[in-house]
Every structure is written in structure tokens, then in C-alpha cells.
């Protein structure tokens, strides 16, 4: 808990700031080995260790850990839950000291910049001055890019994977589907739902829609095709002619939706998707993204994946173009993967090779 008030981009402010975080490894003597890892929309601070709430392993075990490119034996690794989240950081589920009740929709609207500034305060608290690197995928990559814009002197290297410098109309559209699904759930109650009666059905639908955007058509076809859930069904009644989860892909999505409701807060989902929709690094510069990075001394590495249609390669290229125009040291590679946006969380040896080489050269 950091003392407030914490002013936000919207002009509102929070009375105090709570940040859930984890660290791995030790800060070295000259303080030059700190790496901040930023999580995606529904991630958390448990990047490389068991999540106490779900009992599941950390969410980036292929990139972060002993012997891996981001290594607690070499690096001081910091991962925090974003502002607005529901894993220990201030968010709509936090108690508003003014009312002694949960903020719910009374929580101020937040932005990616607000998240990044909260992380900077956490670093102050931890005694970390200049970061060796900020690393993130998806929304985490947006925070990483924003770090270089908001605190250019405080970050030496940025790695943004499967990410973008703005939310596109399509990105916003999918988020709006999710938000409307939550708000259409009678349990949502204008956001004032009791903890034991959340709008689970709405949140599950939001997750189902979003989950499709994390995959690819080829990936879905390979994994499910038109296969039916009941493998024993003979042809005569295979169709079932009903609305149960007939196809495996339906069953999979329903499971994804349901499992999500057990670990995520619906109002947090509203606030974080909103923050993403507002994100556009070029906006303060009349659409000229290069100006956002003017004079930067930070090194950048961007990685995209061939089948990612949520934040497609074209969006990474747009950032690369801007960085080149700004004269920044930038590396970029589009990696082959059939797994769509989620590829950044999966086994990707080429990604590890690029991240490792890039970080070592910047150490």
C-alpha cells in the first residue's frame, strides 16, 4: 500500500494505491539487472511461481525461470498486478475509504499510463532506479512500449511481444461485446453485485468471445475441427438437434468461460478492457507515432506471430516504422506459429532465442 493521493490521467485520483507484486532474484550491487514483466489483460503477478488462488503454475514458465532468458539467477525480476486488476492491486473490487464499501463502478476509469505510473511507484518503493528491461506480451507489451514513452530515462531495453501501439476498431469492438455481455447479466446490478453473486454468466460469455480472438482459425480447426463432444454418438442421433455443447469447440469455450469466472472479477474486466481501448501512443502527437519515441535511447525488440489476428504483424511493423523514423535501435521479427495471439505464451524456441540474445546484448 503506497500513500495517496494517486492522481490519474482522467483527472480523478485514488486515496491510496495498493499493488500486488512478486519479485524473483536479487538486485545486483549497481542496480543494473532489474527486469519488469508486464502481464496481459487477465494475467497477474504470478509470472513464474504457483498462483495461490488457482493453484496453477506461473503464466510465463517458458520464458521466466532458472536457465531461461529471464533468469532469477541473473536478473532481479519484478511482476506486479496492474492497477484496476483483481489480484492484489487497487481496482473496482477494492474498498473505497470514503464509503467503506467496494468501489465497484465508482472506481475511476484508468489507462495504460496509469498502470505504468503505478509500476514506477512500486519500483521507487523497491529501490530500483533504471530498469534493464521491461518485457511484456499483448497488453503487457503495450505497457512496455508506454514505459519507454513515459519514462524514457528509466528503461534501457523494451521487449514487446504480440502487441501494438494502439487499440484498433476491431479490438475495441470485441471488447465492447465482452463488456455488454457482463452488463447484460442481471447479476451485474450496475456493478454493485455482492462478492458471492457475481455476473458469472456474462463474464463467461465475455471470456468466450475474447478467447476466440486469442486463437487462430487454423488452430481451432486443427484442435477441434467439426468433432462432436460425444464421440460415441452414432450418425442417427449425432446431431442431437439441440443446444447442448454439441461440438467440442463449444464445450471447450464454455469450459474456458466458466473457469475464468472463478479467477477474475467482472468489474476489473470492464475497467482493464476500457484502459486498453483508450490506448493509443500516437494520440498526443496527432497520429504521428514516431514523435512519441523522439530522441529515445532505449533499445527495442518487437516480436509478432504469423497467425495473430488480435494484434497482427502489421501493428508491430507500424511501431517498428515509427522507431526507425525516430532513429531508435530496434529489432523486429515475425515468427511462424499456428497458435494465433496465444503463441507468445506457448513453447516458442525462436522467441526465447531472440529475447535471450537481445537482453544479453543490452546487459
Amino acid at each position: 500500500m503506497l500513500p495517496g493521493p494517486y492522481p490519474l490521467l482522467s483527472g480523478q485520483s485514488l486515496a491510496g494505491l495498493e499493488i500486488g507484486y512478486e519479485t524473483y532474484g536479487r538486485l545486483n550491487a549497481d542496480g543494473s539487472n532489474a527486469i519488469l514483466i508486464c502481464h496481459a489483460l487477465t494475467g497477474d503477478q504470478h509470472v513464474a511461481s504457483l498462483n495461490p488462488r488457482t493453484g496453477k503454475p506461473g503464466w510465463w514458465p517458458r520464458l521466466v525461470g532458472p536457465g531461461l532468458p529471464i533468469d532469477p539467477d541473473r536478473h532481479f525480476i519484478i511482476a506486479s498486478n496492474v492497477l484496476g486488476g483483481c489480484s492484489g492491486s487497487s481496482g473496482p473490487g477494492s474498498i473505497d475509504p470514503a464509503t467503506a464499501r467496494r468501489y465497484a463502478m465508482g472506481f475511476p476509469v484508468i489507462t495504460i499510463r496509469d498502470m505504468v505510473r503505478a509500476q514506477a511507484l512500486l519500483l521507487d518503493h523497491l529501490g530500483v532506479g533504471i530498469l534493464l528491461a521491461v518485457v511484456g506480451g499483448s497488453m503487457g507489451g503495450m505497457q512496455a512500449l508506454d514505459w519507454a514513452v513515459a519514462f524514457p530515462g528509466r528503461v534501457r531495453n523494451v521487449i514487446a511481444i504480440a502487441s501494438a501501439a494502439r487499440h484498433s476498431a476491431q479490438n475495441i469492438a470485441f471488447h465492447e461485446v465482452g463488456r455488454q455481455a457482463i452488463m447484460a447479466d442481471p447479476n451485474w446490478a450496475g456493478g454493485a453485485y455482492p462478492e458471492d453473486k457475481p455476473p458469472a454468466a456474462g463474464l463467461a460469455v465475455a471470456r468466450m468471445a475474447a478467447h476466440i480472438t486469442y486463437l487462430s482459425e487454423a488452430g481451432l480447426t486443427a484442435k477441434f475441427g467439426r468433432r462432436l463432444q460425444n464421440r460415441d454418438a452414432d450418425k442417427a442421433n449425432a446431431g442431437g438437434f439441440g443446444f447442448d455443447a454439441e461440438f467440442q469447440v463449444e464445450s471447450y469455450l464454455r469450459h474456458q468461460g466458466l473457469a475464468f469466472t472463478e479467477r477474475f472479477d467482472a468489474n476489473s474486466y470492464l475497467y482493464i478492457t476500457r484502459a486498453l481501448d483508450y490506448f493509443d501512443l500516437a494520440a498526443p502527437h496527432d497520429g504521428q507515432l514516431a514523435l512519441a519515441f523522439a530522441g529515445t535511447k532505449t533499445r527495442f525488440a518487437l516480436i509478432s506471430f504469423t497467425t495473430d489476428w488480435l494484434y497482427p504483424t502489421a501493428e508491430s511493423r507500424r511501431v517498428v516504422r515509427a522507431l526507425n523514423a525516430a532513429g531508435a535501435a530496434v529489432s523486429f521479427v515475425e515468427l511462424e506459429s499456428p497458435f494465433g495471439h496465444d503463441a507468445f505464451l506457448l513453447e516458442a524456441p525462436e522467441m526465447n532465442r531472440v529475447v535471450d540474445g537481445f537482453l544479453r546484448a543490452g546487459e
Partner: protein
Amino acid sequence: MSLRPDLAAIADAVPAGARVLDIGCGDGALLAHLRDTKGVDARGIDVSAANVATAVARGLSVVQGDADADLADYPDAAFDMAILSDTLQAMQRPAAVLAELVRIGRRGVVSFPNFGHWRVRGSLAVGGRMPMTKSLPVSWHETPNIHFCTVDDFRALAVTMGLRVESADFLSGGRRRGGALANLLAEQAVFVLSR
């Protein structure tokens, strides 16, 4: 690690500490050499993801991209030297790429296989077949090379485009040779150009 002779000839043309862009940098061998021996600020572009991954793993700043399409992103005179090694003949629009080269770089360095070399001529004139030589090892239907030229062709294009030839180096059998009869005797040519 010793560089390919044509790359060594290019490296000689690059002053220490220069800002360098290598277009079609492959796995970054030349850039790494320039960084390690001349302390240049090294950047690269290559079309192959595997090459880029290797180059980045070497600690180089390399972007996956296509010289035919992606050079427009760079501001004028962003680099002291823009290098195009053994790549011109694979470009869709070689003249446009050359123009970009001397726009982005205060100087452009271009190396290419000389299609006027006597072995190439002999292969066509006597053998009646598209040549396959040490510097052109791939058969006509597999080769990425779509725009061959001779040393004299290149000089003529430079004149047409109003480019100044600052220097020219020629190689044959992996060794440097003089400029005499280069159009006939050089296997590879390295030109330094400016606007």
C-alpha cells in the same frame, strides 16, 4: 572469423564509428564484424525470420523486412553508410532500391555479381545455357536473382540516376583485382555511391 572476400571489401569502405544500415544483412555476419572491429552503430534488415533471429541473438538491431517495400520508413541521411551486399540482383525494383540507398545513407555501398564476367559470357555464348558459377551457384529456375547486370550496366545506371561513384572495387577468385577490364574479368564488384 574471416569474412567472405566481398564482405571484406565492403567492410574496408566503412569508416570507424559510422552509423551503418545493412540491407539484406543475412545472419548479421558483416554487421557483427563491423561492430566488433570498427565500433559502428550497426542496424540491419533481412527478409528471413531465421536470419533475423540469429542476428538479434548476436546482439544486433535487425528488423525483418523487405528492401523493396520497407526502406521508405527511414528518414533521409539516417545513416553514414547504407550497404546492399549481393542483394541488388534479387530486388523487384533495383533502381528504386538504389535511390533509397543513397537517400537513407550519405553513402551507399553496393556489391553484386558481374554478369559480364567471361565465364558467364562463355556459358551463354558457347554452352548456350544460363550460367552457373561460383558467384552464381543456383540454376535459373531456382535462383532468387531476377535482375542481373554487368559492371558496365551498373555504371550506366549510376550515370542515368545522377549518382556519383566514389570508389569501385573488383574481385575475382576471392581476391581483389584492379579495375582494368573489370567488365570482363571481375566476378564481383563493390561500388561506393553518393548522391
